[in-house]
């Protein structure tokens, strides 16, 4: 049976990266809904940035960017994938002043992927040196703040300094998350990927 037009199959390697990007997008969405309760008055500990970390390290800049872009698009389309089951373009722009952090995750994944892989074709994580991976993770967190803080300032009319001050209490938590991600890399937990 001949088909009416010629079917241009997606090549096997692309299908493989694409499905991984799709799954890490879904994982980013799932991690945004899960948090570990902390004792006392501390806010719950969410694992949302790990979507960005994994996207950059496992998928590289191109497919890592695709993963986070899919996450944002699905949220804009109305699937409750942002923190606390939020959705919509309004949430990406404003959030609790946190919209810039969502955009920051996308750019952070691309930057982490670019530093770690230095090519749009990702290499196995086992082939990446640990210091380079650590540098990629640190840079991605820096990017998230570099976008999130000015964005908060734009949305709220707060000066940059005040916007940064408002974010200061979250910095220690993010440093803990960064430390956990570095421990994951140094422990070789991703080297099978």
């Amino acid at each position, binding site marked *: *049976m001949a*088909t*009416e*037009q010629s*079917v241009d*199959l997606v090549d096997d390697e692309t299908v493989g990266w694409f499905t991984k990007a799709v799954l890490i997008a879904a994982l980013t969405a799932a991690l945004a809904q899960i948090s570990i309760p902390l004792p006392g008055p501390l806010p719950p500990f969410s694992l949302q940035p790990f979507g960005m970390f994994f996207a950059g390290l496992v998928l590289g800049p191109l497919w890592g960017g695709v993963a986070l872009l899919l996450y944002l698009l699905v949220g804009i389309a109305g699937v409750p994938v942002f923190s606390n089951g939020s959705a919509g373009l309004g949430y990406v722009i404003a959030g609790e002043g946190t919209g810039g952090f969502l955009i920051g995750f996308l750019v952070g994944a691309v930057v982490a992927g670019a530093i770690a892989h230095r090519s749009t074709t990702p290499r196995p994580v086992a082939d990446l040196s640990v210091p380079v991976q650590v540098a990629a993770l640190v840079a991605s967190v820096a990017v998230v703040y570099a976008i999130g803080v000015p964005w908060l300032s734009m949305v709220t009319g707060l000066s940059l300094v005040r916007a940064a001050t408002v974010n200061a209490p979250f910095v220690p938590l993010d440093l803990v998350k960064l430390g956990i991600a570095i421990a994951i890399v140094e422990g070789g937990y991703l080297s099978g990927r």
Partner: protein
Amino acid sequence: MIEIRDLVYRYGDAAALDGLSLSIPDGQYCLLVGPNGSGKTTLVRHFNALLTPDSGTVTVDETDVTDDPVVARTQIGMVFQHPRDQFVAATVGADVAFGPENLGLDRSEIDHRVAAALDAVDLDGARERRIDALSGGEQARVAIAGALAMEPSYLVLDEPLVGLDWPARESVLDHLDALAADGTGVIVVTHDLRDLHERADRLVALHEGQVVLDESPSDALGALPDLGVRDPRC
């Protein structure tokens, strides 16, 4: 006709298929059995060029499948174990339409095929239902419909009955009978022959990457325990 000649495929140093030859004529209902690791899944994944042989050839209607994977993948519909992981859309109709959409068919032809495929598995009313809300048996039937929407000549099912309860299992098998009676070749990969051996025309057993038994199911049953497959009559 699916024709396999001297097929060799290795995972690293281990030969999963070791010079295997087999031909399956149109419209046959064939069981492919063998213990875990005997090469069943590896074999069927060559039928539609999901795997490329290290040596040997696979042809479907005299076309080499590696030359034209599109023809192989439309001629041979494949349903895998764990249907939950092979759906591409959240609703039944959108999932079944995925294959025909990839073929670039007109929307009216796609709608027609989706309706016909769902009708063939008695899910014609389920087009707008969420796949996650369906039972395991219904999910297996949606997966079959997804393959049927390509209008294949053969349907290959890799362990389609794992995890299904008895009524769901019967229902899936009855639908396969109807498809076979309608002229579609049915190839079922399984290590569990309960309820299957009476329905099929042929039983092919694999062991260590080679065909070790190729008979009618009723004649083959006695030899099965030696091959690590349970006799379904026990």
